[in-house]
């Protein structure tokens, strides 16, 4: 479902003497449907970079980045947007939303974007918010005013609203209390159950051991570092 073939990534800083900073080289991996793979490696080894390359947020310098058959490294913007809408979900650490949109709609939005019936979308959103212990009185408010923890849970609810066949998870359990952590882990397990291919970063070792089928140390792809 998610396949990287010999992908490299470097940053060229044109405004700082055109310094070229290679950050990834020869990255190859393959994640099948129903599989969860953890990216490991020291801070700065390029875990987030790799996730961003998969999501199309960073432009791969070479190699192929296949998600559901589409080469993200070469795709047109609208193809990547369609991929993100239908196939590839991304739960980042930070919630980025438009001010004024109520929480319930923020969570339901990915469902509406794929043409889901409005009531069904809101019902599903409500179910997720309930599972993640967001008090119902907050649902009609914009999450921009919420605490960091609440925002993170809203973000997770949004990320799991649509049943994406492929998902990227960036520290989904960080700074959650035990109960919410448990909920998120079951959400991940449910996603695997229905056949989602998942790539994630989990600093929480216990969580990693519970949901991940295998680990990939991205230091292997870091230029100048020997794993």
């Amino acid at each position: 479902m998610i396949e990287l073939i010999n992908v490299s990534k470097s940053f060229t800083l044109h405004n700082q003497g055109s310094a070229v900073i290679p950050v990834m080289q020869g990255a190859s991996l393959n994640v099948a449907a129903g599989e969860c793979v953890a990216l490991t490696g020291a801070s700065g080894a390029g875990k987030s970079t790799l996730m961003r390359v998969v999501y199309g947020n960073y432009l791969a310098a070479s190699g192929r980045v296949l998600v559901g058959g589409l080469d993200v490294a070469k795709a047109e913007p609208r193809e990547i947007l369609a991929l993100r809408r239908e196939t590839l979900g991304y739960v980042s650490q930070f919630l980025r939303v438009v001010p004024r949109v109520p929480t319930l709609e923020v969570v339901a939005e990915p469902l509406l974007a794929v043409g889901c019936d409005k009531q069904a979308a809101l019902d599903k959103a409500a179910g997720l918010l309930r599972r993640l212990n967001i008090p119902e009185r907050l649902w009609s408010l914009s999450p921009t005013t919420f605490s960091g923890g609440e925002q993170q849970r809203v973000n997770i609810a949004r990320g799991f609203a649509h049943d994406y066949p492929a998902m990227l998870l960036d520290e989904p359990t960080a700074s959650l209390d035990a109960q919410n952590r448990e909920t998120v882990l079951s959400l991940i397990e449910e996603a695997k159950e229905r056949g989602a291919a998942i790539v994630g970063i989990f600093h929480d070792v216990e969580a990693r051991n519970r949901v991940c089928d295998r680990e990939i140390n991205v230091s292997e792809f870091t230029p100048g570092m020997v794993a």
Partner: protein
Amino acid sequence: MTPLLQVKSIEKRYGARIGCSDVSFDLFPGEVMGIVGESGSGKSTLLNCMAGHLEPDAGQVIFDTRADGPVDTVTMSEPERRMLSRTDWAFVHQHARDGLRMSVSAGGNIGERLMAVGDRHYGDIRDRAIDWLGRVEIEKSRVDDRPSAFSGGMQQRLQIARNLVTGPRLVFMDEPTGGLDVSVQARLLDLLRGLVREMGLSAIIVTHDLAVVRLLADRLMVMKSGHVVEAGLTDQVLDDPQHAYTQLLVSSVLQV
């Protein structure tokens, strides 16, 4: 899928000076494209060439018309082009005053495009004007007030209502949030985003505000000295800019 708009090798010169040169892209139905660049980079020239306000010196602007399929709007007759700009196209000016009739009531401003395409039932026109006031979050009781009595943000929202009432398929926007307070900007952006999604609009937004494109645009074109220096998915261009100028532009924005 047929692109809604195909821009091919557009060039506009002002004497020896280049307005914009060799600009080509396809815009697909439902896509929102941002054009960013500093003042004088040619982005407004390009927008005006596409919208038929300026005649390009070279190139084609092919629009997928409802009746006849793709037609080059640069060479089409003026009546056809003007008809297009009153029906399937819309243009939101930076200054609401340029896009509104200041001596005509809000209802009349919204109704004008309807009357221009032949609506002759006062009650229907007024109902639709009132409906649109609601959609752009202006009190319905203001329908008979002139825009001169409105705040800047309200004027801009009225201009948007006036443009969208005929259900256009392509909207050109020239710095739609320029000159507005930050809080007013956010509301307007949010509104635009909702309308674009709801109506399935395609839009081309010229701005120098990167926050605006991050919020509204699916894709981005970066212009410098009349040329497109970089184009791609909005978040990719902003988070991983490839061209020196884009890197400078992105790094120049103050982090909040």
